[in-house]
C-alpha cells in the first residue's frame, strides 16, 4: 500500500497548490452603546451618543469618543432627516448584489450628528444626486422593524432646498 502511494505520488509531480478549508464561527457582542443604537433602529429611531468632553455626537457610538478616549454616556435622539455629504453611483455588478444597478450609495449626515452615516438613496434618478441634498430615512413597515440596519430601507429626497456647503464641509 505504501509503495503504491509513493509510486502514484511520484507520477503526479510536485504539489504546487494546497486547499485547506477553514471555517470559524464567532458570536458578536455590540456592547452597551451600540446596543442602544440597535434598539433604536428596532423602534424606527436613530440613537446617537454625545462626548462629554468635545460635545461631538456619534451615530452609532461604540461607547467611547474616538478623539478623547472617554465614555460617551449621554444618549441623543437624532432627526430622521440629514444631508448628503458625498456619494457614489454604483454601476459595476458584483457577486451577491441585492440591488439593481445603477444605484446610489451616499454618506448622510443626520441632523444633530457629527459623523456621517452610509445609506442608499432612492426615489431619484441617479444623475440628479448631489452633495448637500436633503434626505429622509424610509423605514420598513413597523411589524418588520428589527435591531438591524435592515430596518432602514433607504433615504429619499425631501422638498427642502439643498444645505449650505458650510454646514457640512467639516464632515467630508
Amino acid at each position, binding site marked *: 500500500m505504501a509503495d503504491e502511494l509513493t509510486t502514484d505520488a511520484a507520477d503526479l509531480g510536485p504539489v504546487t497548490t494546497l486547499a485547506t478549508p477553514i471555517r*470559524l464561527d464567532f458570536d458578536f457582542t455590540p*456592547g452597551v452603546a451600540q446596543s442602544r443604537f440597535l434598539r433604536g433602529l428596532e423602534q424606527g429611531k436613530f440613537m446617537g451618543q454625545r462626548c462629554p468632553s468635545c460635545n461631538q455626537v456619534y451615530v452609532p457610538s461604540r461607547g467611547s469618543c474616538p478623539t*478623547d478616549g472617554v465614555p460617551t454616556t449621554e444618549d441623543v435622539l437624532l432627526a430622521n432627516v440629514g444631508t448628503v455629504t458625498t456619494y457614489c453611483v454604483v454601476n459595476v455588478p458584483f457577486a451577491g448584489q441585492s440591488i439593481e444597478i445603477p444605484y446610489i450609495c451616499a454618506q448622510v449626515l443626520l441632523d444633530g450628528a457629527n459623523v456621517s452615516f452610509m445609506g442608499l438613496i432612492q426615489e431619484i434618478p441617479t444623475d440628479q444626486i448631489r452633495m448637500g441634498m436633503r434626505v429622509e430615512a424610509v423605514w420598513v413597515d413597523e411589524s418588520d422593524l428589527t435591531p438591524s440596519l435592515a430596518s432602514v430601507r433607504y433615504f429619499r429626497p425631501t422638498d427642502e432646498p439643498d444645505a449650505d456647503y458650510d454646514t457640512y464641509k467639516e464632515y467630508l
Partner: protein
Amino acid sequence: MSAAARTVRPVSIASFAQSQNVRKDDERNEVEGLMPVIAEVFGNIGITKADVGFICSGSTDYLIGGPFSFVMALDAVGVWPPKSESHVEMDGAWALYEAWVLLQEGEIDAALVYSFGRSSLGDLNEILTLQMDPYYEAPLWPDIVSLSALQARALIDAGKATEADFAAIASRSRRDALANPKAQVRNDTAPEVLLADDYVVAPLRRHALPPITDGAAAIVLAAGDKALEWSDRPVWITGFDHRMETHSLGARDLTSSPSTAKAAEVAGVAAGKIDIAEIHAPFAHQEIIVAEALGLDDSVVINPSGGPLAANPMMSAGLIRIGEAAERIRSGQADRAVAHATSGPCLQQNLVCVLEGA
C-alpha cells in the same frame, strides 16, 4: 545586577491595571471593556495620555473574528493629542518589550502598553489551531488541549512529573487566587479531590487546563525623573529578553524550554535571589518546564496571584504576570522577581522579565 542589566536604561513599571477576569463578558464590546482599565492605569499615578510618548498594544483579530480590531480598540485611548502608536499581534508582554526598547533610545520617558482579548466569542481550542504551520499541521486541526496533552505525556514519560504534580499546581494556583479578587477560578480544593476529575485529553484532567477568559490589562512604563516622580518605590526592569523555538513540534524536545533558558540567561535571572516568579504556563504541567528553565529553586514563590490557571485572558495573561510581579515588589512583599510570558503551542516562544525594587 548582571552584565546585561548594567547596559540598559532603567525603566520602571509605574502603574498596572487589569479588568475583572470573566468567562464571558457579553455586555460590553472591546472598547467598553478597555476604557476602565486605561482610566485606572493612568489614574493610579495621576497622569493622562498627554504624559506618555508612545502607546503599544497586544491583541489578535482571530479572537474577535474581525479585521483590524486593534485599530478599533484605539477608541478606548483616543487619538488626541496624537501619539506615536504601535501594535503586536501577540500577548501584551511583547508590546511591553517593544515599548521598553523604544524607551532605551532615550527620546521618550513614558509609554502606555495595553492588551485585550475575548476568548469567549469563538471556539478558542479551534482558533489556536490556526497558529500552527499552515501546510502540514493546521489542516489536521490539532487543538491546543491535545497538543498540550502530548507535551504532558512526554513529561511523564521522561520521569520529570506525575499527574499528581499537575493536580498540586492547579490546587495551589486556585487557592492562591482566593486572595486575588480579579481572578476567575478561585477555590480551595485538595489535589486528591482534583485527581478524581475525568480526563479531558489524557493525561490532562480538567483542573490542569486554563479557564477560558475575557479580560484586558495595561501597564505604564516610565524612565528617568518620571519613574521617581510617579512612584515612591519604583519597580525597575533590570533584565528583559525573549526567544523563540522552531514552529515544528516534532523538532522540539517538549519536556524542556531552551528558549526560556536562553532568555533567562540574557535577562540575568541567576544574578541574584528571586523571591517570587509569575509564570505564564496556561497548562499545569508547563509550570514545571518553565520553572526548571528559569533555574528556580524551591524557595521561590510561584504565581502568588493564582497565575493563568486562575485566569487566562488571551493576549493579556503574559502582561498580567509582569504587572502582578511588579505589584508585589511595590508592596514590599518581594525585592526581586521574575515574570514570564509565553506564546505559541507548547511553550514555543518565551519572554523573561526581571524586576527589582529600588
